[in-house]
């Protein structure tokens, strides 16, 4: 942490959804995400996790506070080098898997051979090679989410924001997708911010996990995992894994109870 520079910096960030009801959804948040760090966010549902992703990505302005990515303020638009995978299925239903993945590259006017090369790689990497010509309607929810990941991946973002990308998957597939995500993270050297509701997923994948309070979401605990960079899902049998998960849960328990109205 100390030797790496901060890649994304949030200072006093809050977000209040305007309108008659004025929902204070987030913050204040102060957070430094290091370059190359794998940072996860866990928190009770409705606590503002997706809101955090939106303001960090520049999709929504913060009500107060500042956000910087690579030293530049984030305001009004998604900075170059930031890739987003949304919680909902955002694949384009009128395009095949291949064309979905190529979408961003084509808009950049990249030459066709390079597009093909990168798309083939990303499609293979996400295990979609057999479905390259299929339309999203022909795929399962989990596969569509992988199409969206591949579409973001081919643009080689330096900061990847993922909002519960494996929510639609069963536990086993989730663990394996987690391994793929780790492999991707290692190979690209990108910084990853992963939002998840699964404590084990956060504990296994991350360098650091931020635990959020119930709405308005603030960080109530930051847990360093201390995993080596070349970890994989087998660390779930490591003694430290149990300890980390237990700590996450003890931080989260009272907040989760508030979220279901028993606080």
């Amino acid at each position: 942490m100390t030797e790496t520079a901060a890649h994304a910096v949030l200072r006093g960030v809050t977000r209040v959804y305007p309108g008659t009801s004025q929902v204070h959804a987030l913050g204040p948040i102060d957070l430094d995400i290091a370059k190359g760090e794998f940072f996860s966010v866990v928190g009770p549902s409705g606590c503002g996790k997706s809101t955090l992703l939106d303001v960090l990505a520049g999709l929504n302005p913060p009500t107060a506070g500042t956000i910087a990515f690579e030293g530049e303020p984030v305001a009004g638009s998604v900075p170059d080098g930031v890739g987003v995978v949304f919680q909902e299925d955002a694949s384009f239903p009128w395009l095949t898997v291949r064309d979905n993945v190529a979408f961003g590259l084509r808009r950049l006017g990249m030459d066709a051979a390079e597009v093909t090369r990168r798309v083939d790689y990303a499609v293979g990497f996400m295990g979609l090679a057999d479905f390259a010509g299929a339309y999203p309607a022909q795929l399962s929810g989990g596969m569509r989410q992988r199409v969206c990941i591949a579409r973001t991946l081919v643009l080689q973002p330096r900061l990847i924001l993922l909002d519960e990308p494996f929510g639609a998957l069963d536990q086993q597939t989730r663990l394996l997708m987690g391994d793929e995500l780790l492999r991707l993270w290692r190979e690209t050297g990108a910084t990853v911010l992963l939002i998840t509701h699964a404590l084990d997923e956060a504990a296994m994948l991350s360098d650091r996990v931020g635990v959020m309070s119930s709405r308005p979401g603030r960080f109530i605990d930051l847990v360093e995992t201390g995993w080596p960079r070349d970890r994989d899902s087998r660390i779930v049998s490591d003694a430290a894994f149990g300890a980390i998960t237990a700590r996450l849960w003890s931080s989260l328990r009272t907040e989760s109870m508030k979220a279901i109205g028993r606080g």
Partner: protein
Amino acid sequence: MTRREGLLDGTLILLAMLAVWQALYQYAGSAALTPPWATARYAVELLGTPTFWGHATQTLSAFAWSVAISAVLGIALGLWFGAFRFAGDVAEPMLASLYTIPKVTLYPVMLLLFGLGPSAKIAFGVIHGMIPVVLFTLGAVKNIRPVLLRAARSLRLSPMQTARFVLVPAVLPEIASGLRVGFSLCLLGVLIGEMFASQRGIGFLIINGINSHNVKLTTAVTLIVIVFAVGANSALLALDRRLHHRG
């Protein structure tokens, strides 16, 4: 529905219609309409005459113009109303009520505006056909899943790129449905226009047949119109289904 089931259904409907037609003929007699087989034979005969084609070209050209104008104006207005919520919120109920009033009542106004001649027919086709295109397009733009637009922003698309590469393809299936409905209504509008005030065209042939008690001619021309309309509609429906299937 599979292709074969569709074919079977189609055949059954056709047979049922022929039976009803024959029954009506038995009931009303040759003063009102001619029986199916004789009509079909006369229709084929008509299709070989230059007089018929003189009228048909008039109708087809007015129809083509009104479809083209309805499509271009309808899609443009629909995208515009859809993109600007306020304009859409004002326009939608107005268009919906305009859609339900009998457009025949507007015909005198159209005649005053466009005079007798092809432009009045085209205008009449357009007022019938354009509104569904606008409404379908507008609805599709308003109901586009927000996450698709958020994805466009996260992929750093300009507003023009978003319109061209996300908005239009996302609403295309709905636009195709609107065009299909608009297409049928344009034909209806043009034919009614020709019936009211024209000396040319298929609508005129039908009304002229009725006025001169030429039952054979009226029934045969009506048959030709029906076959054309049903054929074109099925082709568009197939296209429509294919677009919707993808999504």
